[in-house]
């Protein structure tokens, strides 16, 4: 390696270092470590629960409960402890919010998918991905409207809506609205589109506005 090549690599490294530091500090300020611990706990609980026997709709409701817990954790990470100073000086803040929101959503899907390896997960991974995307969208919308600390309300309330929707698949009259996407079949386009629309709305508002500041 020649002397100019070494200087080019070190220049690129020194340019990337502040960006990585910014990302790390942003994630730390959003309590991402605690959120990841929550997601890991939910995945572990799902893994343990899959060993028990469940009736038909109980088996479908089970992943939804843990998906909601994970989505609530993702929503909470939108809350900022800095407020106005960060907004005034953080040029990259929207991009950091967007990146962290998408990365956390992907982490939840991967964590729950890994937890279900070797066990029978009713609905399959596609169901998990759709529900997580939709629930995170609800959590992000709640973070924008109510604040990061109260972002859990939306996913938790929607969990009950979805759980009852699944229950009615066996106890008619069934709730068939695609907006109750957890109750839709695995490959239902309407449900997937609704979940995607909610996520798009949530991530867009969270990127643009961030979580509402609460006293």
């Amino acid at each position: 390696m020649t002397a100019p090549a070494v200087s080019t690599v070190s220049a690129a490294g020194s340019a990337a270092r502040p960006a990585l530091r910014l990302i790390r500090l942003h994630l730390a300020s959003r309590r991402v470590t605690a959120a990841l611990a929550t997601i890991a706990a939910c995945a572990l609980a799902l893994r343990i629960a899959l060993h028990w026997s469940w009736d038909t709709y109980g088996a479908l409701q089970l992943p939804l409960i843990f998906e909601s817990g994970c989505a609530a954790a993702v929503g909470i990470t939108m809350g900022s402890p800095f407020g106005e100073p960060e907004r005034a000086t953080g040029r990259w803040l929207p991009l950091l919010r967007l990146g962290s929101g998408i990365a956390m959503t992907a982490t939840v899907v991967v964590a729950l998918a890994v937890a279900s390896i070797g066990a029978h997960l009713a609905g399959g991974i596609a169901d998990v991905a759709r529900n997580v995307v939709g629930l995170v969208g609800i959590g992000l919308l709640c973070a924008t409207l109510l604040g990061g600390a109260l972002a859990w309300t939306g996913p938790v309330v929607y969990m009950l809506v979805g759980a009852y929707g699944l229950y009615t698949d066996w106890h008619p009259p069934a709730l068939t609205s695609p907006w109750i996407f957890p109750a839709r079949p695995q490959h239902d386009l309407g449900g997937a589109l609704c979940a995607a629309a909610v996520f798009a709305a949530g991530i867009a508002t969270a990127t643009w506005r961030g979580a509402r500041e609460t006293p």
Partner: protein
Amino acid sequence: MTAYSGQIAGRAGGRRHAWWRRIGAAGRLFRIELRRSAMLWMMPVAGALFWYNAFRESMAEPAMWNLRAMTMHHGVLLDFAPPVVGAAAWMGSREGRRHLTDLIGTVPRPRWTAQLVTWAAVTAWALVAYCCCVGVVYGLTARQASWGGPLWWPAVVGAAGIPALSAVGFAAGAWFPSRFTVPIATVGAFFALGFSAQPRAPQWQVSPTAAGSPYIGPDAGIGTFYHYLPDLSIAQVICMAGVTAAAIGAVGLLDRASGPWLRTLAYGMTAAGLAAVFVAAGLAGTARLDPHGMLAIPALHDAASDEPIKYTPVCDHAAVPICLNPAYAAYLPNVREAITPVLTELAGLPGLPKSVGQDPPAYGGPLNSSFVAGGAGVVVSEASPGGSQQFNLVLPDQLPAEPGGADITVRQFVGQIRLSVAADLINKVVGSAPGGESRAQHAVVTALTFDAGVTRVPRADAAVSAAASRFAALPAAVRHAWLAAHLTALRAGRITLAQLP
């Protein structure tokens, strides 16, 4: 009065005054907490979730107290768990989240007292919301039900579950004051309730969502003919009281600045609460399915509850009146529609009942069985020694419009009654020959069953089927006249297949 006794009286009066001051201060604190409680904001959420789930499911049931109360019992705590646990965990973690723990630790009163008041405010609002929701269901049912009164035990179990939910949420928030605690506690509580609602070992019936045997569920015959057994409900209330005491005691363990007696009290409450939970689970484990479809726990059972409920049946005024339990008054026209073709077919023949009554269904089998021993059918009983016969029928366990798995229509309901009633009544009238049913009797039963509008007729060989078809093809008047003339011989087995017209 001496100076000394005056001093004592003054000291006692001062102590009373101090107590009143303390109660007044606690009341003021309670009022402040009521205004600041997060549960106040969660009440509309709880109401909306209740409407979405338990209310719609209960009100979709026929207007019978037992069906609606038991359906509501199953769903109401699942609806209240997310908002109540969430609000309680939020309030429980308030001091920790706001970093006020040290500041509040310096006040002269024990921290536990203030926390109990905060918890009481959350619980009070949750109970107000719960009472409103249950009141709406019971109020509407009171207007619609044809008979009976409210079943209070399912409502009491729910009311005992609300403090337990809020105490668990509050303890979780107080012990782990993080914003992540709230969703974890909420999801955990919902999972625990949902998990316990699944059919599992008998001890799990202590779950406040279990409204009876999970294998039977809400059934029209339960609590209609016999009193609703409170055994399981009592065990559930003990369990919920235990959970509440244990969780509140656990909150007290956090208060390290409190005196030894308060810590002893906190330990005692936690231990007593846990003991109550185990005792209640043990009691639920001894439950057995009684013949009336409810769970009886020997240690809690009151034999007086086994007495049948007295009622005045609702009858129509036909030649052969049908009399049903007044709770089933709405189904009288359906039963009449089901039985009329059979009664018309057998009119005037000996053995025809003078009236038709109703018997309760009989439940049997092991605890994890949904076997209804009686099923839909007819039990023949002599109503009086004078020979006037009353035929008591058992209505199907699924009623029309009931949102169960079967979801039967009125037509199916009528068909089910007709199938069993026709078979039993016609067999009773035609009878069996001394050596068993003769082939002619079989043919006549088949023909009459078919003619009464029953789609499923008894199986028969070719010769019997041909004779049955021939007999069924006769005009009704001719068939009836032949039966009136030959019924005695037919019952004695003296008519052969070839002698049938």
